[in-house]
């Protein structure tokens, strides 16, 4: 029962997210809108119930399980890369390497600047 109650909260917020997406016409998925709404609600309430914490921990621990069926499709659509697989591969590998390093560098740089700014205050 405890888990079900938390799960119900998550599903309701997902439905609310979908409602916001459709009614306002946002190009963002209902799941992400629901996530933002859950965080905002919890911040307003100032605490999270055990049921909700349990249910979300459970779902997050099986995230990989939920993603894997979609990923399987890649092996069955490989032929659509045909002719351009090399540029796609280079773009993905080099692009991801560059963007990962850039993100870390930016974080380090801006976090460092912030502490410096504090010391000047």
């Amino acid at each position: 029962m405890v888990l079900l109650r938390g799960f119900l909260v998550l599903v309701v917020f997902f439905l609310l997210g979908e409602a916001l997406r459709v009614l306002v016409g946002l190009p963002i998925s209902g799941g992400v809108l629901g996530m933002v709404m859950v965080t905002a609600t919890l911040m307003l309430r100032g605490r999270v119930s055990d049921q909700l914490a349990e249910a979300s921990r459970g779902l997050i621990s099986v995230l990989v399980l939920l993603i894997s069926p979609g990923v399987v499709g890649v092996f069955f659509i490989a032929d659509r890369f045909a002719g351009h697989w090399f540029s796609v591969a280079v773009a993905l590998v080099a692009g991801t390497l560059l963007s990962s390093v850039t993100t870390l560098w930016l974080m380090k740089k801006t976090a460092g600047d912030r502490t410096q700014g504090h010391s000047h205050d």
Partner: protein
Amino acid sequence: MTEFNGRMQELLLVWTTGPMLSIALTLAAFMAANWLFAKVGRPLWMPPVLMAAVILAAAVAASGIGYETYQQGARWLTVLLGPATVALGVPLYQQMHHIRALWRPILCTLPLAASLAAVYAVGIAWLMDAPLSILASLAPKSVTAPIAMGIAEQLGGSVALTLGGLLITGVLASVFVDWGAKWMKISDDRMVGFALGLNGHAIGTARAFEISPTAGAFASLGMGLTGVFTALFLPFVFPF
């Protein structure tokens, strides 16, 4: 013998009319992948999601049920991705004090890093003369799957190619963020987590939860913000 074959065909038909065979295959592959992952010493370049997908693809191909039939049954599991995305809001709230402490670097990094995640890949593919439909499919490569599929369709890309790009990007981001953090001597779980979520969406986030709950919360934040940012701005700046 022919009668036995006929029965086997009938059994396959009975098994595949409901979703249970797909669910059993997916659960078994997930558990086998987790077991194997621990067994071979948790290599970064072969995360459980990739192992599970390889095992599943082999099982689907070998069983002869066909990808379409498998996918229909597996929908009973994949619909849970919606509430699971919502669930990421809970660790986000629980780690809010960490996020407050780092709000400036997060806000400074996000727009540039999320844009570059798309621009680097699209730029490289463009330089290599890839057609427009491929560029559109690659653009949302660092965005979480449900949003990325919407963006790819809006820009005129192929959803299947986008999902392929997402998988490869997620796995590569897990490896590259780890290398980059070691190279730049970053040991802050918050920064590593944020970079994982921003570049590697749900796959990077799953990886971040393996590092620590704090890294996981920052990955959820990075993934969510990148998704929202890219969905709002990519359709306006995609220049064709």
